[in-house]
């Protein structure tokens, strides 16, 4: 136990991180997918770029921080779902652009000024639905039948309804006519939205190579976009809606897109295949996804962290003390160090390398976004934002080392080591044979002994009940429990009786306690007294004092009886083995 707690102290990472900045009221409400670090001005000093969700209705902003201060703010028109920084083109100055995904659009900023807006291609519209609205346009169909027909399409058709039809179906009868008149002239469109965004190097692996944008959509598609022309270079389709995405490789050479989807599965897409190559079925929904080298680490809703190979083979599972809120990669290339940061809802951020817990960072609030990397001029910077809108910046100490040792609670390493089990001996084989042949007889003998044991126990119990020797009351009307404690060295002892009424709700009244003892050996101030009303559940300590009269080093039993007024048989009996008096009386 004590070893465990000192290990926990080691894990508490106060010695590993410098607290560079904490602003509890930074007013930053965001998630890991909307935070990036980038050298926006090409001055060797990385800035923090945040897509701030504000309150969800207003105050949505693109914010840029330099050091501890806010450098700039741009208003966003809609909620951001993801933000990345990427290099669009080869030529100088090589300053990265920022892409903010929101709704069906990607807003691209260069030098923090709006530069380009990409819109997802519209989806195919159901021809039947199209037909119905053309009829409505010609006033050839009344709203009621339009409603019925649309409902039947909604329930059956492969191609889902457009947003307009879905809104129409939610309306009351009197609102329908105005709605139809208002919208019938415009053609119907089916638009999907972006759920996640990431980048993929075009054809070079360098840190500062040109990157394509990769987006996942609500229509279960994944698109790769050209970094300069924003044309769709590749389209892949998933069985479910992607929510978290990791991308590695180069578009022109070989790449791998790992997507966690809303159906609780992870799919792995590769170049030259429009459908997923591998599938990982999770036992609960994915909350965070981090790729570390060739492995994928997933945090799941059931407070677990799993490691998988890139082909979907499970490597390990670790159990977490609280639900995961978000995850991030801690990559320190200059030290060759990689680990996974897991933010938990108990205001802790755990650092894992494989399944080993390396360190714990306590935070003043629940962390909702994590970003580790070079900030300003400092390579090992950890940036976190919190549920309450706070901003935390920590810098990894240059002297910090993370212990390789397995500190995760759980089965010890030894458990997975194969034991060198010796060969079966002749004796062992003989015994097994005997057991096999005489199974019935052995079972009978065992059952017989078991019955005997039970009988002996029952007899002892009855005897105890008959002589009222039990410290547990057997009477159903006065369920009581008592124990006694003797304190002191002698010749004076303090005797404490703890009495408890174990009934569910009924109090017990009119009880008394009486002591029976050898009067040559002991004297008691009061050998009989009444007990107050016993409220159920409470413990009543009752103190009394015993004087030992002998100095010959002998001791005896004192019997305690709990009695009910007007009943001669005691409810409870306890025998107290008095200790030998070791003290000398003060005369």
């Amino acid at each position, binding site marked *: 136990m004590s070893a465990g707690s000192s290990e926990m102290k080691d894990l508490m990472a106060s010695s590993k991180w410098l607290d560079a900045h904490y602003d509890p009221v930074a007013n930053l409400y965001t998630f890991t997918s909307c935070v990036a670090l980038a050298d926006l001005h090409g001055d060797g000093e990385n800035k923090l770029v945040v897509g701030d969700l504000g309150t969800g209705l207003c105050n949505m902003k693109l914010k840029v921080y330099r050091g*501890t*201060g806010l450098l700039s703010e741009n208003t966003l028109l809609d909620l951001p779902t993801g933000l990345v920084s990427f290099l669009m083109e080869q030529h100088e100055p090589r300053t990265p652009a920022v892409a903010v995904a929101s709704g069906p659009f990607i807003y691209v900023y260069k030098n923090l000024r709006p530069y380009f807006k990409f819109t997802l291609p519209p989806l195919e519209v159901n021809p039947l639905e199209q037909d119905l609205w053309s009829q409505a346009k010609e006033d050839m169909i009344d709203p009621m039948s339009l409603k019925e027909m649309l409902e039947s399409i909604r329930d059956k058709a492969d191609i889902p309804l457009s947003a307009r039809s879905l809104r129409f179906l939610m309306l009351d009868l009197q609102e329908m006519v105005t709605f139809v008149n208002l919208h019938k002239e415009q053609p119907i469109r089916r638009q999907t939205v972006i759920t996640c965004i990431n980048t993929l190097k075009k054809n070079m692996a360098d840190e500062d190579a040109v990157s394509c944008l990769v987006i996942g959509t609500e229509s279960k598609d994944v698109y790769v976009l050209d970094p300069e022309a924003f044309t769709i270079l590749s389209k892949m389709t998933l069985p479910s809606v992607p929510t978290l995405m990791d991308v590695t490789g180069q578009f022109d050479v070989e790449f791998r897109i790992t997507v966690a989807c809303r159906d609780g599965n992870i799919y792995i897409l590769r170049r030259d295949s429009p459908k997923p190559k591998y599938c990982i079925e999770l036992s609960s929904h994915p909350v965070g996804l981090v790729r570390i080298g060739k492995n994928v680490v997933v945090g799941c809703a059931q407070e677990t962290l799993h490691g998988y190979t890139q082909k979907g083979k499970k490597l390990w599972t670790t159990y977490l003390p609280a639900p995961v809120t978000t995850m991030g990669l801690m990559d320190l290339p*200059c030290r060759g160090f990689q680990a996974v940061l897991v933010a938990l809802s108990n205001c802790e951020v755990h650092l894992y390398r494989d399944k080993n817990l390396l360190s714990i960072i306590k935070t003043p609030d629940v962390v909702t976004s994590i970003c580790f990397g070079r900030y300003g001029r400092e390579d090992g910077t950890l940036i976190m934002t919190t549920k309450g809108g706070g901003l935390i910046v920590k810098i*990894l100490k240059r002297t910090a080392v993370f212990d390789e040792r397995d500190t995760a609670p759980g089965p010890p390493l030894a458990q997975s080591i194969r034991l060198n089990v010796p060969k079966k001996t002749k004796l062992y084989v003989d015994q097994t044979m005997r057991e096999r042949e005489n199974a019935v007889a052995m079972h009978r003998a065992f059952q017989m002994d078991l019955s005997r044991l039970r009988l002996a126990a029952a007899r002892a119990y009855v005897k105890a009940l008959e002589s009222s020797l039990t410290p547990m009351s057997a009477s159903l009307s006065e369920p009581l429990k008592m124990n006694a404690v003797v304190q002191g060295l002698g010749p004076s002892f303090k005797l404490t009786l703890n009495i408890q009424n174990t009934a569910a709700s009924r109090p017990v009244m009119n009880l008394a306690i009486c002591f029976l003892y050898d009067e040559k050996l002991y004297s008691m101030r009061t050998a009989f007294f009444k007990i107050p009303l016993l409220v159920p559940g409470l413990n009543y300590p009752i103190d009394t004092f015993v004087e030992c009269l002998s100095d010959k080093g002998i001791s005896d039993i004192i019997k305690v009886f709990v009695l009910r007024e007007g009943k001669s048989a005691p409810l409870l009996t306890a025998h107290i083995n008095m200790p030998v008096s070791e003290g000398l009386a003060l005369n």
Partner: protein
Amino acid sequence: MGLFDKLAGWLGLKKKEVNVLCLGLDNSGKTTIINQLKPSNAQTQDIVPTIGFSIEKFKTSSLCFTVFDMSGQGRYRNLWEHYFKEGQAIIFVIDSSDKLRMVVAKEELDTLLNHPDVKHRRIPILFFANKMDLKDALSSVKVSQLLCLENIKDKPWHICASDAVKGEGLQEGVDWLQEQIAQSDQNDENVRQ
């Protein structure tokens, strides 16, 4: 040019070489400061910028400067530590506009002060709260608070705000350092006699 010429000349009379370490995080202004102090005839001895840290060395007639960045996620930190032993005075440069990395500067300073080759020696330390011209720069008082300089009890130290680009504030610091070196020289001689 050549603010140290006076100091060097004065020490030159004594035929003694003084090793000055100029330390601080990268980008704090060390090179700029040293270039201001360099006498025009000083030659740079060697620059080793390749292996993750860089050391600049140059010599005047009687002063030997060693300058290095205490930066980077330090694989090479033990390389610069062996210069501590030779140092007889330290110039520690802080970028007073870099609030985020003030904790890092403090951490490096504390490590330096606790190094066995520095800890028990009365080496004078001169702090430059540099880049005072920048609008979000902290005052030298604030910098000395953040670095907890008041806790340095066993070494003479001094902090001055500076603008290394214009050369402002450097003279005050150098005068102080000169006095300290002269005093410790005096003490040494007293001990010898």
